[in-house]
């Protein structure tokens, strides 16, 4: 992670601020920074979005391609995640520098999107056992200002809402052979149902309290955090503890309750924004908490 150098005095200042429920940028512990979303920004993709969370910036492009379904689930399509840490965001990510982090984050996404009610994976199947849609979800980090996972998951949901998958028809000839025909009608596409797509909420334990949407400076003061993926009804679809120190059960309890509350707000904010934007490409913003 791109880290900032902080002196002990600065850390104490941040920790005391959090204890008084007032953070350096004037937020309370359960506030997000201003979020700005733009959909359909890259013309060569099936769906794309750009998201700005104060000074974290993420670009997501989704490409739909046809491939062979996995042997364990022949009747469904699947997703492939890839997180690219651009050296623009931090010189640390140059070369293979961001590899470990990127692998870790794409695993998180892949794991959370495994649950079979998150998307209608069966609608991504073209010919059972032979051909299905594979959605390549590529996330590029353009600027690194803390709380990357939350920002990425918001951008992924926005990009999925924007994704258009061409309609295909399967033609069968007299000998039983199958042929796929892709519709060339510009309106011949279907969109994905995204109401069950989860968002990540990262809760960072700072001193005695926990905060959501930590900045880089706050992340430097935090030794343990919980990454919870929450869906729009407040259920959890995955959770993992990060960081090198331990947490007491009471603080985990409080963090999970916060995650549920903040997660629902975050979904509401993004959903209203996406329904306003529709398929247009103008950028819009919203605030949570």
């Amino acid at each position, binding site marked *: 992670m791109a880290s900032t150098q902080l002196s002990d005095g600065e850390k104490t200042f941040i920790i005391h601020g959090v204890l008084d429920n007032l953070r350096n940028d004037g937020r309370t512990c359960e506030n997000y920074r201003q979020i700005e979303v733009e959909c359909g920004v890259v013309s060569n993709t099936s769906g794309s979005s750009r998201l700005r969370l104060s000074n974290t910036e993420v670009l997501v492009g989704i490409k739909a391609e046809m491939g062979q379904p996995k042997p364990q689930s022949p009747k469904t399509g699947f997703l492939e995640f890839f997180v690219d840490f651009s050296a623009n965001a931090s010189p640390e990510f140059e070369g293979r520098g961001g590899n470990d982090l990127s692998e*870790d984050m*794409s695993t998180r996404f892949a794991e959370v999107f495994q649950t079979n009610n998150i998307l209608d994976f069966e609608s991504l199947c073209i010919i059972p056992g032979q051909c299905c849609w594979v959605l390549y979800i590529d996330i590029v980090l353009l600027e690194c200002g803390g709380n990357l996972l939350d920002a990425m998951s918001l951008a992924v949901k926005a990009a999925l809402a924007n994704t258009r998958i061409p309609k295909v028809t399967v033609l069968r000839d007299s000998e039983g052979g199958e042929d796929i025909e892709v519709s060339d009608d510009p309106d011949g596409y279907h969109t994905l149902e995204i109401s069950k797509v989860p968002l990540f909420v990262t809760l960072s334990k700072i001193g005695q309290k926990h905060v959501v949407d930590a900045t880089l400076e706050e992340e430097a003061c935090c030794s343990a955090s919980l990454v919870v993926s929450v869906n729009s009804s407040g*259920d959890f679809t995955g*959770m*993992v503890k990060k960081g090198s120190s*331990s*947490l*007491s*059960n009471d603080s985990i*309890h409080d963090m999970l309750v916060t995650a549920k509350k903040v997660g629902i707000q975050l979904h509401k904010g993004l959903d209203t924004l996406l329904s306003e934007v529709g398929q247009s490409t103008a950028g819009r913003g919203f605030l949570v908490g």
Partner: protein
Amino acid sequence: MPVDKKRITGPEVTQSPLYFLEDSSGISQLVNKDGTRKDGRGENDIRPIFMKAGVVSQAQGSAYIEIANTKVICAVYGPRQVLRREDFSMTGILKCEFKFATFSCPFRRKFQPDVEEKEFALIIEQALSPAVCLHKFPKSQVDINIRVLENDGSALAASIICSSVALTDAAVEMYDIVTACTLRITPEHMLMDPSYTEETNSINCESNGVVTMGFLPSINQTSSLLQRGHLSCDKVLKALQICTEGCQRIYPLIHECIRRSVKSKYRPAEQDKEKSEEDQNPSKG
């Protein structure tokens, strides 16, 4: 991904016959009508655990654990000087390598560590680091090698327990021992210490999930937490409580294992007497 031509001599793509079983993905009942599980246990029962420290003579510390059919071996090397200059740090670091043996699961694993193995390695590192006095060995690292020999569920929990016993055996100073417990949650039941079928069967359906927790019993802190599947907030909170209780039940078994290994190390005369005692530590259900 480049393929290791030296070791992998089979065809590039093969498929396990298990994929072609009739109804292999079907949702089946994990609990019998009389409330017992498929292997006859009650909901809250842990399978019998066998542990032994000091099984690899070359390693500073090592341990072996069996939880019924789940078998894990772990060796600890170090503390030794950090190998890469980038890793330099004034506190010690733990380096964990986690690997499922290629034949350990129903489906064959690859030689190269896959994403799940890398994730588990990171989780184990983070589960152990709060327990180890890292400030005692600056500029050095401790290597923890974990190999799952047979996976019959709860492999991550078994690995966490095994590696913490191995660290103790290596005489690495620690604040506490890390215990771990896995809980499988279905819409109606909470099954402690699930077997492989219980852990994987219909796990991707709504209201199903698995929670694994690493716990430091004497300071009452949770050092690792992993939840998979779709669960409500209340269910997760309930699961954490049950997991904590499960971890506390495993704690005395680890204690006993360490006591025994220390005794045999420093008072070899008593070793023969010890040997005649029963080795098995069946958990009380």
